[in-house]
C-alpha cells in the first residue's frame, strides 16, 4: 500500500469512527439542540501528519483535513453542527470570527499561543463561550507556559494533552455545557 493510500485509509477510518462515536454519545445528551460551533485551528496546524509536525506531540492523526472531517462527523453524530476553519494568518482568523454566526467556538491557537491577543479579543467580543484546545499539555514545560496562553484568561475552558481526543472530548464537554444552559452567564 502506498503512503497516499495509507493516509486515505487512515482519514476514512478516523471519520467513520468519530461519526459513529458521536452517534453513540447523542443518546447521552440531556437536550437535543442543534448547536452551531466553529472549530478554529491556528498557524501550522495544516502541517499535521506523518511528514509534518512531531508525532511524539501530535500523535498519529494523518492530516488536518482528517481531523476536521472527523470532528465534523462527530458533531453531526451528536446532532450538532461544526464548521471547521484554519488559517496561517491571524487577520484571516479575525475575519472568520467576525463573520461567524455561532453558539460557541473551539480554538487551537497553535502558533498564536503567544501573539494571539487580537484573536482572544475578537472571540471575547462575540459574547459567545470559547474553549481553548491543545494536542499536548503545553503547561508540562513550566518554563514556557507557566500559566496558559494569552488566550486562556478569557476562555470558558481549556482542554489539552489528549492529542486528537482532546478535540472530541472538548466538543462533547462544550455541547453538554450548552445543553445545561446558563453555565456561561
Amino acid at each position, binding site marked *: 500500500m502506498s503512503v497516499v493510500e495509507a493516509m486515505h485509509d487512515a482519514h476514512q477510518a478516523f471519520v467513520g*469512527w468519530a461519526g*459513529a*462515536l458521536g*452517534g*453513540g*454519545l447523542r*443518546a*447521552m445528551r440531556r437536550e437535543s439542540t442543534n448547536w452551531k460551533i466553529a472549530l478554529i485551528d491556528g498557524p501550522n496546524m495544516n502541517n499535521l501528519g506523518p511528514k509534518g509536525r*512531531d*508525532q*511524539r*506531540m501530535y*500523535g*498519529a492523526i494523518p492530516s488536518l483535513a482528517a481531523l476536521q472531517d472527523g470532528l465534523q462527523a462527530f458533531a453531526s453524530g451528536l446532532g450538532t453542527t461544526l464548521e471547521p476553519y484554519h488559517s496561517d494568518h491571524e487577520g484571516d482568523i479575525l475575519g472568520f470570527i467576525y463573520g461567524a454566526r455561532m453558539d460557541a467556538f473551539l480554538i487551537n491557537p497553535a502558533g498564536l499561543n503567544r501573539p494571539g491577543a487580537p484573536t482572544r479579543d475578537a472571540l471575547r467580543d462575540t459574547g459567545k463561550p470559547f*474553549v481553548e484546545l491543545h494536542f*499536548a*499539555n503545553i*503547561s*508540562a*514545560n*513550566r518554563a514556557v507556559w*507557566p*500559566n*496558559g496562553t494569552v488566550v*486562556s*484568561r*478569557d*476562555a*470558558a*475552558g*481549556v*482542554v*489539552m*494533552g*489528549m*492529542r486528537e*481526543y*482532546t478535540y*472530541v*472530548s*472538548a466538543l*462533547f*464537554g*462544550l455541547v*453538554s*455545557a450548552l445543553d*445545561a444552559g446558563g*453555565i456561561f452567564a
Partner: protein
Amino acid sequence: MTTATTLAALRKGQEAWRIEVLLGPNMKHLGKRDPRLFGAASYEDVVAEVERFAAALGVTASVFASDYEGELLQRVHAKAATADGYLVEPGGAATTAQGWTHALAETKKPVVEVNFYNLTARGEISLFTPSAIGRSMGLRQHSLVAALIGLVLSLDDTTFLNPREQSPISRSGGAPYVRG
C-alpha cells in the same frame, strides 16, 4: 441492544479500563459551593453523572473524595497496582499539594487534571499540571465527563496511552511530552 452496549462497542478497544476519580479538598461539598464557579450540581449528582458515562463506555470509574490530602495520596497508593488512569480534581489542593502530586507521578499511569472552573483565568497555577498527561477545565462537571471520555479514548489508542502495546510515539508511562 441497549444504548450502553452500543456506545461501548464504538470504542477502538474493548478493555474495561479502571479509572480512579479523585476529588480534593472542598469538592465533596459540591452543591454548597460558589455556584458561579461550581454550578448547582451536588456531589451526589456529579458522582451519578460520572458513573452514567462510565457504564455507557464500558469502563469502571471509582470516585473518591476527601478533604484530607493524606487520604488522597493513600488512595493513590492503594489503587496504583490496579488503576489504568486517574482523573484528578485537586480542589483546594491545586496550589498547595506536594505529597499527592508525587504519589500520582510515581504510579507511572496517565493523569488527566480536571478543574471545574478556569484556574488560569483567576491567576491560579496548579501544581498538578506539569506531570499530568492532559487537563480539562472550565466547564464545571462537564469538564469531568469530557475528561473521562478523552482518557478512555486515549487508553484505547495503542499509539498513545494504551499500556498493552508500545509504539515509538506511545506515552503509556503517563508522562507528558515536553518539546526539547
